[in-house]
């Protein structure tokens, strides 16, 4: 794990009309770690990642990626930097098969705009194999026929296939059963082991304490604090989520979060 953050966000603010969704948010994630992003409903988790992914613009603030200040105007910009997002609702097309979904919007084609199906099929197979996703029988079956866990695996595999450096997972286990949740969490850990920076959004503290290296807590669109998984407790995090009590953690410098209560 490197010490300099791969992605660093400083003082990011975002309003929707008169609603202040994010106020002066600071956030960072390093390569090779799983950074959990938690908070109650409306805390601004989804808004924050949509800003990073280029789905929303942001009003003010700074994004530093790989040591360089960047501007992200759309999903393509984010993808070029190596940022991939796996959304809560997966953003897969049910009517397309696994290969087609993996390459959606970035199809390989030759000079005549013809799709290079064999190449895409081959790379899909390799990617899934590399992530040890073995439950999918045929990569030519439509996504509609896959189980929730398999879909999630496809979505995650799609995110990592593009030599991405940062993968953001929005509630990846929300709709899954116990066994499938375990499968996906295993996949998340593997991503970090392979040296990617992973941001994990979840409501489920059990999942977070099983996978995360550090935990960032948001509340009502503001920072509450950053916690080391190894030194904190579920209780402390719950308190931070619900009451917004900031806790100073040794070894981590943080902008003094404002207390809203």
């Amino acid at each position: 794990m490197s010490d300099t953050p791969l992605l660093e966000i400083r003082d990011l603010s975002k309003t929707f009309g008169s609603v202040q969704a994010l106020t002066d948010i600071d956030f960072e994630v390093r390569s090779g770690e799983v950074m959990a992003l938690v908070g109650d409903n409306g805390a601004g988790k989804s808004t924050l990642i949509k800003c990073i992914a280029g789905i929303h613009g942001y009003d003010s603030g700074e994004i530093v990626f790989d040591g360089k200040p960047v501007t992200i105007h759309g999903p393509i910009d984010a993808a070029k930097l190596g940022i991939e997002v796996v959304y809560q609702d997966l953003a897969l097309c049910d009517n397309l098969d696994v290969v087609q979904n993996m390459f959606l919007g970035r199809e390989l084609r030759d000079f005549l705009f013809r799709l290079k199906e064999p190449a895409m099929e081959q790379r899909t197979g390799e990617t899934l194999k590399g992530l040890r996703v073995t439950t999918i029988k045929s990569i030519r079956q439509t996504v509609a026929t896959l189980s929730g866990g398999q879909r999630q695996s496809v979505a995650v595999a799609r995110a990592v296939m593009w030599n991405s450096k940062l993968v953001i997972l929005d509630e990846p286990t929300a709709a899954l059963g116990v066994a499938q949740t375990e499968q996906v969490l295993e996949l998340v850990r593997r991503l970090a082991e392979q040296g990617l920076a992973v941001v994990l959004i979840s409501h489920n503290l059990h999942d977070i304490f099983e996978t995360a290296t550090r935990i960032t807590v948001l509340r009502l669109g503001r920072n509450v604090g950053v916690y080391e998984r190894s030194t904190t407790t579920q209780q402390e995090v719950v308190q931070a989520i619900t009451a917004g009590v900031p806790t100073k953690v040794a070894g981590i410098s943080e902008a003094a979060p404002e207390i809203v209560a």
Partner: protein
Amino acid sequence: MTSDAEIVAPGIGLPGGGEAEQERGLWQRAVGNIKSGNLGVLPVVLGEILIVAYFGFTATNFFTAGNFVNVILQMAGVTMIAYGVVFVLLLGEIDLSIGYLSGIAAVTAATMQLPDGRNYPGWLAILIGLAVVAVIGSAQGTVVAKVGVPSFVVTLAGLLIWQGVILQVLELRGVIIIETNWINYAATYYFSANVGWLIAAIITGAYALVELGGAIGQRRAGLSVRPWMPAIKLAGVAVACFGTVAICNHATRPAACPAGTPLTVNCTQSQGLPLAALLMLVFLVGLTFLAKRTTFGRHVYAVGGNAEAARRAGINVARVRILVFAISGIMAGVGGMVLAARLQSVNLQAGGGTLLLDSISAAVIGGVSLFGGRGEVRGALLGSLVIATVANGLNIGNYSTGTIYIVTGAILLFAVTLDSVARRLQERSGR
């Protein structure tokens, strides 16, 4: 050519899955496909066989070579328009203006070729006609994609507007005779017997080359290749091509008698493959290529399946929508000219009647889902064939126009019900 094989074919499994295991799974997967609502072209092919069998036994003069050629000529116009409908339906949208857009294209082309008017050459007249409907289609598509007005309303307005324009333009003349063979040949030209055979051979050979190329590409990528499936498909294509040419060459049509022939003798000449059949095939291949083998086609399916997912994947959804409405307009224009070629003129009825509903029905009967994202271009050809066969058979059997409407409507209702049931099955088979 109409085999269900392509849909049943499961493709290539993950590396590591044994070949033998996949072979065994083929039949099971076919059953699984049907159970999960992935019916493909199976229902429409079975339906067509039933319809042909019924009329073959009940209507005299139905099961003849001459009538086979008739059906081809009758379906050509609707088929062309329905090709465009497929793309619109794949997006989950609808285009109600296609009927009169076909009329607009035909009227424009007819006006341009008028000897006492602009007197443009036929090919230029056709291009101008198609350009006009392409622009109209993209304009309607822009309102749908950029402003967000439902396509139903935009194209309903288009239906009224373009009908009005046709009435205004033709108010004085009523009818414009088309004299250029560039247009008229679309419905009146027949290839000689030998050229017909040559065409069938070229198509079969080209198909074989394409299949071979695909197999080589897969092998080169280290993927397993199943040799017998393409072989079956190739055999199907060969039978369909040579069969069609054989029947068309066998057909005869009335002809002008040479001077001095007694009036009591009916003169005939042998017919041959109509140009219209080749046109339908050329557009079928071209548009199938566009839908299945290009990024644009892939994006059409993606937008129809999940527009938000497509947007997040970086696809320019608005651009896809606008282009699809342009395609819809252009194909309506092509269909309009084929229809005008049959009459060798355009009149106040151009683009009216049941043309719009027949075209949309053709695509839907051919298995293209109204909910978007599911269906293939060839569905339009098959659906149009069903509609033309029913109309033709009932006509020959001396049934009224009313009966034709009722039967076509019933088939459409059946097709849509099947689509809805298939959709529900597919959702259920999901998680």
